[in-house]
């Protein structure tokens, strides 16, 4: 299942990354948010209700899209570009910083 649908700019170079332990492919220039939501339904779980979240404003204002890498690094998905080899997790609360 996915949330976002690509409708343009699909000729970019592929970028390999890992999503919840599975290998996945994004396109160069994708944000982490785009990379994840074109192949999954959410970015993280709310640390309050445990329910899934998938970002909201996409301009770095609402802070709803902080997610985690496997080694615990927090990153704001809407304003971080996907990099080859990133290992991202969706099934954790990604909001707390530091």
């Amino acid at each position, binding site marked *: 299942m996915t949330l976002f*649908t690509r409708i343009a700019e699909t000729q970019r170079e592929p970028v390999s990354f890992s999503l919840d332990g599975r290998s996945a492919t994004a396109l160069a220039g994708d944000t982490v948010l785009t990379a994840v939501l074109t192949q999954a339904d959410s970015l993280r779980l709310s640390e309050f209700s445990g329910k899934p*979240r998938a970002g909201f404003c996409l301009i770095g*204002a609402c802070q709803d899209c902080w997610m985690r890498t496997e080694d615990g690094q927090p990153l704001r998905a809407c304003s971080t570009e996907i990099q080859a080899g990133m290992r991202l997790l969706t099934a954790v609360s990604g909001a707390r910083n530091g």
Partner: protein
Amino acid sequence: MDEPRIVIVGAGPAGVRAAEVLVAAGLRPVVVDENQRAGGQVYRQPPAGFVRSKKQLYGFESAKADALHRTFNKLRSYINYLPETLVWNCDGRQLDLLGRGQHQSLPYSHLMLCTGAIDRVLPFPGWLLPGVYTLGAAQVALKAQGCVIGSRIVLAGSGPLLYLLAYQYAKAGADIAAVLDTSSFSSKLQATFDLLKQPLAFAKGLYFLAWLRCHGVKVVEGVEKIAVKGEQKVETISWHKDGREQTLECDAVASGFGLRSETQLADLAGCAFEFSQLNQQWLPQRDQAGRSSVEGVYLAGDGGGIAGADAAELAGRRAALALLEDLGQTIDAGESRRLDRALQRIQGFRRGLERAFPTPVEWARECADEEIICRCEEITAGELRHAVDHAGTVEMNRLKALTRVGMGRCQGRVCSAAAAEILACSTGKSLAEIGRLRGQPPIKPMPVAAGAAASLIRETS
């Protein structure tokens, strides 16, 4: 006299035009911007390697977008440009920056705040579900990433962006299931006189609406009680029209009710604020030219009150002229008068937009107690009302202290408009009377390690 140290925050239409005027006067400003590339939100540029033309990206506004980008490219060697850099604090004529993992402090003699705006958000049942975004978010997904937010999309809310986005999405091939407008046809009709002050902008609005109708996009005006349902993500949206409930299947919803200025840095810079009836928001005071109440601090663009991209370009130029005048330079008085007149015409149009697309007045009264107002910490309308009923809260900062609303990661950017409406409605006071949330550094979250390094540098320097 020492060289002035001028810092412009924001590289959107206001910031770029301000920089242009200052460079033309022989100055070298620093331009700090959180985005990767200049253009702001409205003229946001996709990352390198994207191939759509500016016409495809910006439509009717492509010439303006292109002109702004070209101007900025020419300015690059005459300014100090810090992209991907967050200004997280402003304290005693110094900014604290975090860019690409590096902390630095940046003292200034003159500060030009061009901080822009975000969508005005009003919560509705289901607004936390994956698949619900702001109108601005849906636009960024398309413009900067070549994506749409779902395969069957509903746009709901109010304001000109609702129709612009519907047009952009439908034209790009997205399936728009419906456009749900909470404002009525009659409110738009009553606003025609003011809207005609910007005939071209008015004509574009009519064109978008006509285009949508011609292409069979369902447009419903005068909608109430929007609610989204779904288990793990959006599955349906329902609304009331003339007392009857209707439901549509969809997998994504974009919603917004106009825009709100980003004012946190003006607050930390010590600017005095006043309540703006037009914007329904507390805004930093400024004179016609863009001078704030603090000497050497200027405001331009949507960050000082919503007026749109064309006004932002004019206001950036105007505020830069004011800055030059304050430095003792002789400025072209004809040019500043021309800018003032153009800005006044746009203000008239803006009044018309507010009448055409009013914020739903019944929202706070109808919002259910279990509705979550704060996305960050999931604080409900009922908790806010409880603080009024049991603690006698009548002021926003008190409400924050008691309930934590506005204390989460977004620092109230998303929730404060709705929380203020709830507090005003529950106390019977006006938005002006209940006050505003005070800004707190850091104005956006940053990794703890970077903050620790910052305090270390300060202590040892």
